């Protein structure tokens, strides 16, 4: 049976245009905007961060931005001929904006990093960051290509796309726009007892930028890739300017992945 309360409802059409000011809004009304970051530790071995994220009350639009983890740095890779070294590639970027509903749950993983093939000539690729849930399909960002070393002086020394040249429309990775950057080019040296290696690992687009993870060597028996690197960046490689040594210098892991959630 109709009550007085149901009779006294006011339709929006009855309101005078422009007469409802901000002062009439409840404190939290339309104050949903926020940014949340999902990321693991910056250590040399981290599982990253995987979690469930629930869409807060009132939120209807979300932008997910993903960065995969960087590739690991190569090892020293000594043999009877001098090596030259290519820096690891930074993680790939992907972005997607969707409509959502409050209470929806998303399964989110910011990629981790782990020591892998750290003394070998070819290091492991970085890991994938991803988000699964309502209005998303196969949405992820690839990890970067691992660094490498070889003794082929016919190898092209210019930087290239390393792992792949991703489709910017994101059709393979489920995003609105995705991109990566080149991996590091091969350092320049020749023959045995090489010297003056300069290699750079690349960063992740829209996050850590270009080429500021650098590893240089003039003359040295062994230099490990010692330092942790920023989120999404390729790891440092191990290097030597000599050949035939028994050293076992290691490369470091890349920087772990990141997920940024912007919601309204």
């Amino acid at each position: 049976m109709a009550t007085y309360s149901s009779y006294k409802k006011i339709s929006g059409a009855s309101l005078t245009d422009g007469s409802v000011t901000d002062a009439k809004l409840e404190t939290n009304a339309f104050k949903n905007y926020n940014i949340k970051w999902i990321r693991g530790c910056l250590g040399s071995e981290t599982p990253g961060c995987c979690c469930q994220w629930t869409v807060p009350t009132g939120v209807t639009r979300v932008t997910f931005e993903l960065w995969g983890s960087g590739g690991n740095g190569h090892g020293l890779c000594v043999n009877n001929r001098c090596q030259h070294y290519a820096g690891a590639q930074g993680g790939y970027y992907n972005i997607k904006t969707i409509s959502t509903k409050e209470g929806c749950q998303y399964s989110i993983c910011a990629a981790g990093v782990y020591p892998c093939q750290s003394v070998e000539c070819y290091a492991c690729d970085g890991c994938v960051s991803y988000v699964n849930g309502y209005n998303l399909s196969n949405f992820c960002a690839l990890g970067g290509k691992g660094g490498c070393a070889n003794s082929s002086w016919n190898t092209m020394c210019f930087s290239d796309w390393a792992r792949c040249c991703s489709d910017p429309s994101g059709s393979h990775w489920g995003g609105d726009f995705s991109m990566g950057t080149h991996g590091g080019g091969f350092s320049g040296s020749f023959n045995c007892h090489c010297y003056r290696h300069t290699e750079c690992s690349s960063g992740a687009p829209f996050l850590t930028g270009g080429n500021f993870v650098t590893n240089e060597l003039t003359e040295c028996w062994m230099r490990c890739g010692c330092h942790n690197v920023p989120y999404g960046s390729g790891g440092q490689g191990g290097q030597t300017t000599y050949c035939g040594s028994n050293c076992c210098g290691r490369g470091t892991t890349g920087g772990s992945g990141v997920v940024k959630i912007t919601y309204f």
Partner: protein
Amino acid sequence: MANYSSYKKVSGASLSAASLDSTKFDPNTRKTFGVKWIFGSPNSCSNGCCCAWSVPAGVKKVQWEIWGSGGSGAGACSTSRCQHYKGAGGGYYNNQTITVTPGDVYSVCAAGNGLCCRRECDGCRGCASYVNGTNLSNFCAIGGYEAYANGSWSSPCESYWDCCLQAGANGGEFGFGSHSGAFGGAQWWFAHGHCHCIHQQTRATSAPLIGTEVQMSINYCWMRCGCWTVPYGNGGQSAMSSYCGGGNCCGTGGFGGPGLVRITYY
């Protein structure tokens, strides 16, 4: 003449302060946030992407972020003297936030990469990305500067501004570019004097806030073209030679990375 509908209007003034929470509103009210990217093919010979963009219903504010395309790489430029090579510059960045009206149409162009692939000592400038429409005036982001090569070993090797724009230039609130690549340092093989250089290495720079990596290096090589496409906004790869006098060689530089436009709207 007044009718019943006009008499029964309720003024917001009669509402209690802070009495309206978001459940009282239509689900689409003020839920207009979105991000749109405009971009062309990432390949060489890209025309970029030009289109008309209409402001969606309910949107009142738009932030435009645009990046010009990168400059293209130089040719190997082999002459009677060994060359050193300056990397191409990344495209410039510009940003503007404006008030808009739903239904307004904006003409948007994310730059192509200039269709320039040169054997000569200098590459080509990158192209400008731009947006035209209400509340914008001459809003653009210029392309990056071209790479080049020369045989002057007295040329300074530091990177520098090819064009230092003030932050409010080109119709934006805040825009800037990066240095173009510095001249690479070649190590001479002394028995050959200035000729027959080795250990060439240099970089093309990225566009601000994108941050990408492209490098070129050779040890001994008659000719290495700038073969690879490069990321959005980055300067292109140059061709290189560690020798001189290779008059029959024709190494060509690569294209710069195409431009980008990011539209964030509320």
